[in-house]
């Protein structure tokens, strides 16, 4: 029985499982109550105010709130995910066990992504039910590709938050992640701005920022969904692939920083 250690996937899943449990016990999912109240109120009242446009309003409002709530969780839980472990010195007992620092980071990341997935899925179900309630069952099914894209956008925001928190304070990490989220959502405008510039240096800088920061506009399909459109499979697949590659790069940087860190 002695002198054993779990296999690598099992160790990572153990860390993920605990990160998910931590989020649940820290009442992160309580935001769902607020969301359900909001979406129920919108289904009942806003539809009547906008004369026949209830489905559009529910999709726009529901998915936007889903994105905003998810972004808040990604940023605020993401920046404290690793920092809290160091500050509360829980890393002392964790790293005396046969677990590598890289495994720990990946495990914590997956745990938070799992929390976000549950959050996003429940919110998506809420929006779908509201749409069924107002009699637009066909749109209730069409929102799911957009929900999936939002989830993968949140995985990038989470990876950015964890990366900043591996070498910075939570407050600064949250601020920087928020900037990345804002710039990332307007990255196509950033490129247009770069192309319209006369100075080569300024154009280079803006183009550099465009390529380095995540292009989160790939994941935005809320307005189109509210108009009854569904994104092509190639767009969804391409965006998911982009998110996965971007997440892997960010996590690699995080692990490289974290493995060199002294826990004083």
């Amino acid at each position: 029985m002695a002198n054993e250690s779990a296999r690598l996937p099992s160790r990572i899943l153990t860390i993920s499982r605990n990160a998910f449990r931590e989020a649940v016990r820290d009442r992160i999912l309580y935001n769902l109550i607020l969301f359900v109240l909001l979406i129920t109120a919108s289904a009942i009242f806003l539809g009547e105010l906008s004369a026949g446009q209830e489905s559009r309003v529910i999709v726009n409002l529901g998915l936007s709130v889903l994105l905003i709530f998810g972004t808040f969780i990604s940023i605020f839980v993401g920046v404290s995910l690793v920092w809290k472990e160091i500050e509360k010195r829980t890393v002392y007992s964790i790293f005396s066990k046969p677990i590598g620092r890289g495994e720990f980071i990946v495990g914590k990341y997956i745990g938070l992504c799992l929390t976000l997935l549950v959050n996003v899925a429940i919110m998506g179900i809420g929006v779908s039910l509201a749409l069924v309630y107002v009699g637009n069952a066909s749109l209730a099914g069409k929102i799911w590709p957009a929900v999936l894209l939002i989830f993968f956008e949140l995985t990038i925001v989470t990876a950015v938050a964890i990366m900043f928190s591996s070498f910075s304070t939570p407050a600064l990490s949250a601020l920087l992640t928020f900037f990345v989220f804002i710039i990332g959502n307007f990255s196509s405008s950033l490129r247009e701005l770069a192309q319209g510039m006369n100075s080569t240096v300024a154009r280079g800088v803006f183009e550099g920022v465009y390529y380095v920061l995540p292009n989160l506009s790939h994941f935005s399909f809320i307005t189109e969904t509210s108009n009854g459109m569904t994104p092509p499979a190639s767009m969804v697949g391409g965006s998911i692939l982009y998110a996965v590659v971007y997440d892997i790069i960010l996590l690699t940087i995080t692990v490289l920083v974290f493995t060199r860190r002294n826990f004083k």
Partner: protein
Amino acid sequence: MEYVVEISDLSKDYETGFWKKKRVRALDGLSLNVRGGQIFGFLGGNGAGKTTTIKLLMSLIFPTEGSAKILGRDISDVQMHSRIGYCPENPYFYDYLTAIELMDHFGRLFGYDAAQRRLRTEELLMSVGLHEKDWKKQLRKYSKGMLQRVGLAQSLINEPEIIFMDEPMSGLDPVGRREIRELIAGLREKGVTIFMSTHILSDIEALCDEVAILRNGKLAASGNLSDLLENSGEERVLEVSVQGVTADTIREAVEFIAGATIFSKPNGANIQILDENDIDAVLKITREAGGHLTSIQPLKQSLEELFVKETSSDPKKLK
């Protein structure tokens, strides 16, 4: 017997300050070997480098210079951790978990199945004296002493060959200290090596086979505890205890013996001499005064005296 911990010229510098960074040496060229199957006491004053050493051994911080091996494997080898245990000073755990959940979480990291985890958890929580009614309470509701017990239990989850304990008795009441002392002694009987840092000298005296004393990040003394106490560079003193006489009756005669001192005690006296050839003279004086001998024993330096001497600020005392 082979060494289970081999520390070679280990140093650690910390950087302080924001702009003008200054380097502070917390550990300075520590070399130390620990034999298996014993309780090794790691002593030193505040800031001597004890916790820094243990953190280096656990790879929580990285050495500036030097190297160390545990069970023959470099400290950077994470898989070696499957054979060791660690109980940090003032244990910090996920306070949203219960003791059972925490033990289960750590058990999973070692790859134990559900039945093994449950069995180990119950065995260990019981052995550290944590009442069953508290097992399902969140750790945030635990007292310091209860957390210390959970800290010990989790360090034993994988049946380690060597356990590193940083101040394991801190926060425990006298009864708790005795229970944990018995637990530690029991582990040694099972062949487990204990590397224990503590400030509580009575625990060191009661438990440890060998000790190392750190002073300002350097090794001040190390070796077998009784050897250190006897061969401390002081003159060997013998204490002769007699009864049936008062100290005042024989004081004048005793003080004729070179280097002898006499102390009064109820119904008798203690006479300290530096030369064993003087025993006969002391006995003669005692008998002539109507008293008799009760014991003769070499007077050992106390661990407290040794500790104070080796950790005092006079650098000339460094070995």
